[in-house]
């Protein structure tokens, strides 16, 4: 009998939490999946299509919904995990918001990430100028099937601004969020397909096409879709007399400053450690790394270990990652959890 009665609580009902819940339930464990939002699904919920193959996000959402449909899983929404404590004897107690306490045999932390608040890069004018939007807001427009300026008119030039809130000491984020480069390329292609008359420019510092088929997508964006790439970090945006955005950047490959008018500026906001996850970590005594994400026990072969017995990490609470890696990381967390529970 494989631990039929053992109970695992999962903090966070995003991609990692849902996958981990499904994998554990499949093996006969009793799982409580705790999600602070109204629905499980995490950031994926607002996504329209996924890189690198433009697959409809709905397919992955529906896979995950099925994954947590198992009768061994109880889903609690609108509830946050506030503290986790391991007790001698092996019980782990979990404090849920609303002062409930739950007991478990193990806990998986999958509290995920927060998107960078673009208002913190004030020089880009998010929240000040109408047509400065974030990458997830563009996805929302894709979901609605129409991309327009705030006044409803059709844009003729769009700029994708990479590294907003990533690789930037000024906002205390020195880390790279990894997925924004390829997201920009994906969205640029979608914009070009949707509006062939609209020019699209990506402003990048380095193109980090680290995953399988990412580089190919980058190539396709140039070869097939005529997406333009300018190497330089945008220093500031303003609005001119025609109410058009004007950005300043150095075209570092030409070695000269460049200005450009844009109809829409899309900020590729990066990932930060979730605020709820940080509170949980502080209350529970989990270590945070220099990037402020949870620091795993060992970066090479203990990437799911928390350092606290019976507590494991899954997904982007440990570092920025894409969906594929998040799902793999969640499965690895399940393997570690099962090994721990079987060994007790």
């Amino acid at each position: 009998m494989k631990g039929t009665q053992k109970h695992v609580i999962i903090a966070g009902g995003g991609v990692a939490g849902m996958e981990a819940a499904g994998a554990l339930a499949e093996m006969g464990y009793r799982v409580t999946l705790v999600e602070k939002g109204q629905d499980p699904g995490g950031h994926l919920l607002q996504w329209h299509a996924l890189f690198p193959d433009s697959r409809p996000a709905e397919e992955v959402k529906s896979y995950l919904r099925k994954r947590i449909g198992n009768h061994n899983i109880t889903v609690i929404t609108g509830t946050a995990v506030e503290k986790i404590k391991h007790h001698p004897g092996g019980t782990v107690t979990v404090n849920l918001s609303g002062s409930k306490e739950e007991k478990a045999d193990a806990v998986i932390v999958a509290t995920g990430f927060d998107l960078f608040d673009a208002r913190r890069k004030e020089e880009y004018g998010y929240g000040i100028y109408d047509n400065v939007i974030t990458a997830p807001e563009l996805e929302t427009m894709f979901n609605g099937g129409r991309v327009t300026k705030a006044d409803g008119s059709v844009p003729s030039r769009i700029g994708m601004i990479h590294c907003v809130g990533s690789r930037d000491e000024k906002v205390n984020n020195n880390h790279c969020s990894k997925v924004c480069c390829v997201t920009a390329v994906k969205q640029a292609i979608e914009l070009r397909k949707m509006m062939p008359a609209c020019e699209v420019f990506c402003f990048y510092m380095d193109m980090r096409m680290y995953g399988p088929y990412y580089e190919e997508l980058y190539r396709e964006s140039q070869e097939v879709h005529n997406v333009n790439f300018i190497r330089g970090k945008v220093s500031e945006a303003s609005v001119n007399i025609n109410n058009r955005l004007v950005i300043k950047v150095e075209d570092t490959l030409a070695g000269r400053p460049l200005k450009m008018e844009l109809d829409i500026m899309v900020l590729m906001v990066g990932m930060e450690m979730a605020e709820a996850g940080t509170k949980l970590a502080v209350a529970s005594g989990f270590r945070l790394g220099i990037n402020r994400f949870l620091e795993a026990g060992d970066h090479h072969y203990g990437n799911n270990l928390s350092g606290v017995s019976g507590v494991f990490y899954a997904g982007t609470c440990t570092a920025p990652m894409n969906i594929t890696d998040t799902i793999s990381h969640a499965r690895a967390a399940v393997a570690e959890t099962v090994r721990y529970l079987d060994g007790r």
Partner: protein
Amino acid sequence: MNVKQANKFGFSINRSRLIDYDTSDRKVREYVTLREPSFKLCFACGGCTATCTAGQHTSFNLRRLNTYIRRGEIEPLREEVTRCMLCGKCLLVCPRGVNTRNVVAMAAEAIRKLERNEL
């Protein structure tokens, strides 16, 4: 045939465009790095140049200046360091937290010392 004759012949001898890293002068780089270690952090994004007032009207380019220092390209540096007005806007932009203004100040100081054979 000497160089003068070659020129008359219709050919000219151009200086090599090569960055000769083996014979380049590292003294300015060492001088700047020692006094302003944040200099090492530049990843050439060009944010400084984008925001630079001097760079809108002259060929001044702080990102390139950093590279000249790193590569030991002293000749173009001499002109370049005189163009900065030390206003410090670049400081506000730099995502790597480089003390850009002090980099220019230290580079200018190094050049002055170099010219007086004090470096």
